[in-house]
């Protein structure tokens, strides 16, 4: 009898053999099934609670933000109804005579002499705070509140109606700003009259020739609420609101790499493709930052006959809970170790409020009639209207990032239906500069100097997390992974100006085993 024949006979005898099953085995199995549910249940319950909590915070913050905007709008509407009154002063710097043969005799003809002329009636000067950024009509920012206060000696010089350019649907807040009062500031030259009101397109000459003394000062308080527009139908276009904000935060996430479920304990059942898995994850996270405080945020805008200077020295920023999305592949390289790589996209949002003084200077060229030795002649003067006020800008900066997480996973524990893995790795991230709905550019200034306007930057971060997962259905499993991402670098002179952003989050997702 050959060995093969013997083996076959033994195999046939035992292949269908059954042994009596001890009592209580099934009951013991059922008890173990219930016990094993506990750690998984609590783990995912914690993850769920965290997710819900983050969601609630986000919703509440959104509601709060909306509420503030509504309040701001209401406030602005109330104040608008009160009418705008304030002192305005005008400076008229003589540029040069354009007519009259006796212009050389006039004491005011010297270019850049800085002599002042009084704005005797009839004077018509339009203050157009919106003119600076009228080109930015696509901006969603809104100017909600403008009020004027007396800045002079308490002497009312004029009444003004101001108009902000706005869409037809918008409620008119200000109409026109026309100086009607003809009271003279300087009795010595009160006899001069404006006989013409003409704008020219020679801003350089005017700018260099005249230092506009603040005759007319208006203190305006302007709030920009970028999100308020679509909500309330008030879409102010053209406000010079190049906002800015400084740097921001960045983060990253979740790392998506991950791990795969332990294959069946029987090696022959696995094929090579089964060593590969694809993970898809959604990662709510909270950015944390280390920041070099900003000293100010400045902006200077010169457009045609208008110059605007803004310096915000009261800066408040707050990072918001954010979300990232990732997809990654990983390979099982040994029984306990997986390596992986992926791609992650996310957005970090930062809510900020800037407040500071803004000075707007509007230059206008006028012709006035003067008496010369040979008779009256027309003289061309430049009139500067200076308005100043406190501008408050509310905005949300969004920083986008694309990450390539490279991870290594080590299985710490594996039980039926449950596995725990330690994840660690390096994150290569490309971060784009902030983006918000307020057009324009503000220049942030810190103690280390002016910060960069770089459009993007690459950074390296380190992360670690614990992934708990369990089978969901054939070839798929669900996982929850709390993690910490740490950035050891400095962001000076990069797009993420003066900030070092870390993050704490919870990756939640699905893992699919390939080759099944």
């Amino acid at each position, binding site marked *: 009898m050959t060995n093969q024949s013997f083996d076959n006979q033994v195999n046939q*005898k*035992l292949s269908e053999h059954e042994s*009596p099953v001890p009592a209580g085995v099934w009951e013991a199995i*059922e008890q173990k099934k219930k016990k094993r549910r506990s750690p998984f249940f609590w783990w995912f319950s914690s993850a769920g609670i965290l997710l819900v909590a983050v969601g609630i915070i986000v919703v509440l913050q959104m509601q709060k933000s909306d509420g503030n905007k509504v309040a701001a709008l209401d406030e602005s509407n109330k104040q608008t109804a009160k009418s705008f009154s304030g002192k305005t002063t005008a400076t008229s710097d003589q540029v040069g005579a354009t007519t009259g043969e006796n212009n050389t005799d006039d004491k005011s003809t010297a270019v850049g002499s800085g002599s002042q002329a009084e704005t005797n009636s009839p004077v018509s000067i339009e203050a157009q705070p919106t003119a600076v950024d009228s080109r930015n009509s696509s901006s969603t920012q809104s100017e909600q509140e403008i009020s004027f206060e007396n800045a002079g000696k308490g002497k009312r010089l004029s009444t003004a109606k101001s108009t902000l350019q706005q869409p037809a649907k918008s409620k008119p807040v200000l109409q026109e700003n026309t100086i009607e009062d003809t009271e003279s500031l300087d009795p010595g030259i009160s006899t001069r009259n404006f006989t013409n009101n003409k704008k020219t397109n020679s801003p350089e000459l005017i700018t260099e020739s005249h230092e506009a003394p603040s005759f007319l000062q208006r203190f305006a308080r302007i709030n920009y609420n970028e999100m308020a527009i679509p909500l309330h139908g008030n879409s102010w276009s053209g406000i010079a609101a190049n906002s800015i904000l400084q740097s921001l935060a960045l983060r990253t996430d979740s790392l998506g790499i991950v791990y795969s479920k332990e294959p069946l304990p029987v090696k022959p*059942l696995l094929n090579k493709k089964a060593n590969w898995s694809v993970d898809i994850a959604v990662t709510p996270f909270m950015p944390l930052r280390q920041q070099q405080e900003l000293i100010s945020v400045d902006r200077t805008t010169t457009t045609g006959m208008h110059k605007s200077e803004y310096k915000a020295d009261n800066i408040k920023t707050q990072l918001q809970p954010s979300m990232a999305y990732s997809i990654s592949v990983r390979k099982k390289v040994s029984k306990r170790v997986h390596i992986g790589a992926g791609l992650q996209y996310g957005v970090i949002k930062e809510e900020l409020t800037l407040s500071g003084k803004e000075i707007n200077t509007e230059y206008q060229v006028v012709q006035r009639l003067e008496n010369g030795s040979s008779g009256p002649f027309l003289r061309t003067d430049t009139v500067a209207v200076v308005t100043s006020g406190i501008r408050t800008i509310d905005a949300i900066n969004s920083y986008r990032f694309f990450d390539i997480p490279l991870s290594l996973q080590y299985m710490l524990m594996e039980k*039926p239906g449950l596995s725990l893995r330690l994840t660690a790795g390096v994150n290569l991230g490309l971060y784009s500069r902030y983006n918000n709905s307020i057009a324009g550019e503000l220049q942030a200034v810190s103690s280390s100097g002016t910060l960069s306007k770089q459009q993007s930057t690459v950074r390296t971060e380190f992360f670690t997390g614990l992934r708990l997962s369990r*089978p969901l259905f*054939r070839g798929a499993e669900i996982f929850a992974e709390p993690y910490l991402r740490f950035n050891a670098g400095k962001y000076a002179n990069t797009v993420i100006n003066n900030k070092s952003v870390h993050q704490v989050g919870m990756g939640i997702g699905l893992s699919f085993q390939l080759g099944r």
Partner: protein
Amino acid sequence: MTEAELIKGCIKKKAGCQRLLFETYAGKMMSLCLRYVGDQEAKDVLQVGFLKVFDYIHQYKGEGSFEGWMRRVFVSIAMRHLSKKKLDFTDIDEVATDISYEEPGVIAKISEDEIHALIRQLPDGYRTVFNMHVIEGYSHEEIAEQLNIQPTTSRTQLLKARKMLQGFICKTCNSIIV
């Protein structure tokens, strides 16, 4: 209920299907466990094995028989238990037999239970290799990998196990004849 429906129900974690699966295969799996480990350990392996089957049944791809897949799961778990104690793969003195094993009908004369019991009398190393190769169909390379031994050791252990088992069977047959 067909086997496919039973498997589908177990994937959905239906308690009734799991119970039915247990009742269907518990006897055969218990027999398998007893061939590898002792009585008490076999009970533990049986419990853990079914828990594993319930957890990983979604990984059964439908290739090959489901019972074969289950057997591999249970063998894997039995191996874990055996790995806790050092298996002895050294040669053991041959069992002397005074009856030739050339009679083809010898095995037919003994029952399945008797063969099962005789296999359990083999030393751990012999028994493990014999079970894995002859009953479960593992190759010597697979056995070597799982037991962390050389393939040649597996072959040697199989030869010794087979010869010893034949001796046990001959003894049993003699006693029957007598």
